């Protein structure tokens, strides 16, 4: 008989081992899935995990990892701050959209003027936009006690409508023959978030993600506010006695995650994506939730998790094209990763015991 016995303290070893274990289990069960679909499982796994990093065309895929991973990391860092304190911002996708709209809007307002000040203004506008969008659930929670999960999630759909409206109206490219979508910022040098070094994938969004990681790490380990966040999450009553102001903490965590999501959107629209269009958002805000948990809500862990998710996307597309794997199989594969991770969490908090329960 197998029993689970609660550990007095969550196991540190398991906390680090479970993400690795989850990846290994995903590979095994994913391999079985691919085999059932009639594909060589070893080759499929290799295509997804090996090809982008070490394959023939890794010179192209490695920079793509940064491009795909940077927004995930940037958003996940912000979310992790809140998640640690038990503040659940599920609407990063919306904040990402609003950040992109504000950033692109600020840049296009100056079109076609060229100036070195335009890009910094766009960065500020993007951050502010994301922050303001996240402040809506924040203020509502503090003032009226609404549920931030619901409000932030619902605001994603509002943001999507706003995005559609902007693509079709205010920000529509006047030279676009009536088609929706803004001017392409890649063709507007002052507003273009170009690669800092050619063919490296390194753009300002990647730099911002790295800064955010360091900032979050220092905040959580060295700063009083980080301590307040951790205590609030782990022992809310103790935090209250310790003099933590919950309202301020809520506003800080939501605002910060909104700000970072807004920045991610801004860097994306000014760089890799290039334009505001109806389908601009591709789910980074939601995927970042997975990334945050996969990285154990730890800034360093999130970097690895973000790169890993990016890898499965890029490798997944290669596997589709080279091996003819259906897109849904790749999605199942990604889903398995989160599933195993959450399922294995049990090992961090419980000990597995074999044999009969002892009679106390």
């Amino acid at each position, binding site marked *: 008989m197998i029993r689970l016995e609660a550990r007095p303290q969550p196991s540190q070893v398991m906390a680090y081992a479970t993400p690795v274990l989850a990846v290994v289990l995903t590979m095994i069960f994913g391999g079985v899935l691919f085999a059932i679909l009639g594909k060589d499982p070893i080759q499929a796994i290799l295509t997804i995990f090996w090809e982008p990093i070490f394959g023939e*065309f890794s010179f*192209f*895929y490695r920079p*793509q990892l940064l*491009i*795909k991973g940077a927004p995930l990391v940037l958003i996940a860092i912000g979310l992790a701050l809140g998640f640690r304190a038990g503040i659940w911002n599920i609407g990063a996708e919306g904040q990402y959209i609003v950040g992109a709209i504000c950033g692109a809007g600020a840049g296009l307002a100056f079109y076609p003027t060229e100036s070195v000040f335009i890009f910094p203004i766009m960065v500020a506008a993007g951050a502010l936009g994301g922050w303001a969008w996240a402040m809506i659930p924040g203020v509502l929670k503090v003032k009226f006690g609404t549920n931030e999960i619901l409000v932030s999630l619902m605001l994603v759909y509002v943001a*999507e*409508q706003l995005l*559609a*409206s902007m693509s*079709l*109206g205010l920000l*529509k490219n006047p030279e676009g*023959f*009536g*088609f*929706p*979508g803004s001017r*392409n910022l*890649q063709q507007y040098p002052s507003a273009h978030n170009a690669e800092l070094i050619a063919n490296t994938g390194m753009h300002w969004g990647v730099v911002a993600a790295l800064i955010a990681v360091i900032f979050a790490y220092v905040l959580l380990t060295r700063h009083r506010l980080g301590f307040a966040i951790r205590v609030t999450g782990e022992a809310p009553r103790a935090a209250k006695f310790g003099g933590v102001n919950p309202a301020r903490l809520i506003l800080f965590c939501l605002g910060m995650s909104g700000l970072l999501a807004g920045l991610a959107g801004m860097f*994306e629209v000014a760089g*890799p*994506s*290039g*334009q505001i*269009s*109806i*389908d*601009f958002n*591709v789910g980074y805000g939601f995927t970042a939730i997975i990334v945050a948990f996969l990285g154990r809500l730890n800034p360093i862990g999130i970097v690895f998790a973000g790169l890993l998710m990016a890898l499965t*996307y*890029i490798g997944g*597309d*290669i596997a*589709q*094209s*080279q091996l*003819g794997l*259906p*897109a*849904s199989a790749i999605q199942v594969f990604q889903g398995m990763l989160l599933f195993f991770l959450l399922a294995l969490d049990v090992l961090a908090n419980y000990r597995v015991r074999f044999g009969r329960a002892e009679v106390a």
Partner: protein
Amino acid sequence: MKFGKLLAGAVLALGVGGAAYADGHEKTKVGFVYVGPVGDGGWTYEHDQGRLAVEAEFGDKVETVFVENVAEGPDSERVMTQMALDGADLIFTTSFGYMDPTNNVAAKFPDVKFEHATGYKRLHPNVSTYSARFYEGRAIQGHIAGNMTKSNIIGYIGSFPIPEVIRGINSAYIHAAKVNPDVEFKVIWVYTWFDPAKEADAAKVLIEQGADVVLQHTDSTAPQAAAQEAGNVVTFGQASDMGQYAPFPRVSSIIDDWAPYYIERTRAVMEGTWEQKDTWDGIGPGMVGIGEISDAVPADVKAEALALKTALADGSYHAFTGPLNKQDGSPFLAEGETADDGTLAGMNFYVEGIEGEIPQ
């Protein structure tokens, strides 16, 4: 003896290999980038049918690859690059939002030919664009719809308010109003090409508002199912025949037939005769097909519809023939005048008689 056998085998292998090269005909590799899943039963499904037709036509001489569910933006750019790196000679990108990515990638791979569906940008000599005159099919739908409606309310599920879709609404309305001047169009914009849940909701709302004919410019069969449930509502298959809902509610359909074009362009690449061009074909060349008009349509209406189809196909009738006014009453086309392709390509207004506004 044994050694001799090995050598003979090696020579044979070399000979075969040499022949394949001397012949100069390695397999031509054709890539397809899809915005939806191949099983959507509509837009992407038909493009994939085109891919299969290319395989059937050229057999061993071609190799086709595809990636489905590719988001517009940087993801599509990565997938196209990956196909080009993997040796594709010709790449079909099958969604409007792939326009800038297609041109970006084409700049980097001047030897690879790119074909972008429904766009207008051909910035490099290796980019062609192609689209179908779906509005010709809409004219036939409008004619049948105007005859079939009893409530005089025709519902229309619009995807995005872009010229392509607006053209279809106008064409359907013009021909419905021609046979039934009391007809009224209700348009719901769902801002998606494929989302069964949203499409079903839109169809239900339209039916509740009294529509007994529902036209759709979205790709799933969900509206068909909603109409079937309602019992007395007429629908038309979109992009694909959707014949599983025939003879009622689906009374006819517009079918995108990309196969002839894909075969022609693949052959051009094989023979080295590929040149940049902008293709906009309709019923005549077979790019737009009209699905079987079912017996639910009265025989005289069916005959008229087929006559209309013949006239559109041989060019003796244009779907936009004056006198026509714009919605605001200003003149659009004089008596006998037909719309030119430029006007049609950028159409961003309703014709007179349609109520409501195009979202901006």
